[in-house]
């Protein structure tokens, strides 16, 4: 199976700063990480690969040159290959334009059986790119995937709903978007880190993927951001589990540790 994972490098902070003029995100000075849902997508891809030997996992991202770090991290986790779609003319792309670029990049890769993406990126929270990409590639899609296993050449996936789930059998090629319940992403491995820096990452610009300028970038993006803001963070809660007795004990111990009682 040829598996493609779409991943995005996002600022590691809930306190994302935005440019008041354009409403786009200011990335400088903020640590960048692999978008959490995309890590789940990658883990699912690696698990699929392990289940069907001979498969390959290619990670594709559209981003600035620094996204190289994130791609190497994906390689260190076990991906075989990585492609960076990078061109000044991609800058300012909204989801419509981004999915254009990703679709063109993925088509250039040749035959692809499964495309996996995260449900959404923490910096935009739109959850649009996955579904848009499926439309552009003209393949069926399942969003909010919380379980996925190969079954007789097809995939059996669980789609998360608010109050339950759907069990769906889907043939390939297809596109799935991952939620965090799907799995526990693996760590990078020591070997993987060393190997990741010996690999070449392909960098493709607009001309490489054969896309017209009016399909990507800020001017081509129908979305206009009127205002961006960071919502007040909610306090991080802690949920204690266990028997009432244990929970009461743990609660008392915690309150004591905080000098509240």
């Amino acid at each position, binding site marked *: 199976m040829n598996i493609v994972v779409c991943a995005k490098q996002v600022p590691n902070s809930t306190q994302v700063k935005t440019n008041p003029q354009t409403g786009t995100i200011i990335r400088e000075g903020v640590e960048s990480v692999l978008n959490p849902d995309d890590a789940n997508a990658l883990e699912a891809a690696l698990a699929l690969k392990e289940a069907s030997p001979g498969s390959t996992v290619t990670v594709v991202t559209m981003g600035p040159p620094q996204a190289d770090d994130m791609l190497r991290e994906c390689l260190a986790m076990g991906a075989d290959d990585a492609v960076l779609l990078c061109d000044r003319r991609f800058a300012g792309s909204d989801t419509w334009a981004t999915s254009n670029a990703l679709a063109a990049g993925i088509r250039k890769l040749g035959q692809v059986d499964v495309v996996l993406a995260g449900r959404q990126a923490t910096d935009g929270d739109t959850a649009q790119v996955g579904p848009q990409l499926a439309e552009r590639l003209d393949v069926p899609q399942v969003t909010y995937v919380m379980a996925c296993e190969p079954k007789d050449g097809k995939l059996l996936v669980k789609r998360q709903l608010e109050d339950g789930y759907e069990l769906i059998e889907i043939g390939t090629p297809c596109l799935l978007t991952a939620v965090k319940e799907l799995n526990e992403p693996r760590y990078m*491995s020591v070997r993987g880190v060393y190997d990741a820096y010996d690999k070449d990452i392909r960098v493709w610009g607009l001309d490489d993927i054969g896309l017209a300028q009016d399909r990507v970038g800020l001017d081509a993006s129908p979305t206009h951001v009127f205002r961006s803001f960071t919502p007040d963070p909610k306090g991080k809660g802690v949920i204690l589990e266990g028997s009432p007795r244990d929970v009461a004990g743990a609660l008392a111990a915690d309150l004591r540790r905080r*000098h509240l009682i």
Partner: protein
Amino acid sequence: MFEKKHEMIRKLAREFAERELAPIAVEVDRTGLYPKAVWEKVARYGLSGITIPREYGGAGGDYKSLAIVMEEFCAKDVSSASLLMGNSLSGAPYLYFGTEEQKRKYLVPLAEGRTIASFGLTEPGAGSDSGATSTVAREDGDAYVLNGRKTFITMGPLCDYAVIFAKTDTGCKRKTDGITAFIVESGWKGFSSGKPEEKLGIHGSITSDIILEDLRVPKENVLGEVGKGFHLAMSILDAGRVTVAAQSLGAAKGALDEAVKYAKERVQFGQPIARFQNTQFAIADMATKVEAARQLVYSVADKLDRKEKVTTEAAMAKLFASETAVEVANKSLQIHGGYGYMREYAIERIYRDARILPIYEGTSEIQRLVIGANILKR
């Protein structure tokens, strides 16, 4: 000196330590055992063979990477260094002195995290004076017959095999001559381990005697040259000391982190104790020493990676970092007041764990001996 891959190794080690080690540190301190699943994960991610070459099942990484992993692991749990022992004392004898067959048989499974190995040098009568070995190996046909007792051996009760140092020639003029290293399997007749020692700290790192009674070791299990065992032990200790220095750095960092966190939380006299200048000064001193230790550790690791001889610098790093760990743990506990004396706080464990650092793999006094002797002979 650091490359991007080192940053990534740090990220990997930090995530692993936060998610796998920190949550069980209290439990490991209580039970004295790491769950099997943790050993397996250490193996799966290649942490059991960071510095072991690829052809022998390792990741082929450098000492800086090992030091980074040590620091990050031990910042969360000082005894977790025992999970990484294959990289240093346990694995190095095979790597540097083993024959091809010995490497295949003993180093590969160790690097892949499938076995546990011990290093048996110390004896009841031969501690700092490790040349005073009284374990004897008598030649008998195609084998040597070993008799003696090793003491304070890390992983003694759990090991699958151990390197044991014994006298093959009791007639040498210098007592450090005539010592030979042997690879001994724990399943062989005549091998037994003593009861696990009850210790002040590093409970997750199990320690016991290893007793050798008429234990036949085939000659192919002689490691290195007959009579050159003491030299073997000493040459491995350089890298071993860098590892303990990195472990100490982790311990010191962990203690500092706890102090900083606590100083901001604890309110007395109407303000967080972090506002008192005395607290600030204590933390400033601690942080400065931690940083100094860090510079020493990584500079020696880098020299090791460049294959330079580091005996003096390794001793300096081990001496300074281990003493720093004890000092910083002590100060951090003081900042915690009475709470720091209680099991509920991590610093109580770090304080106990750190105390081993200036003792094993050569006491601070022995490090000073090495440093002084090397400097004066220049």
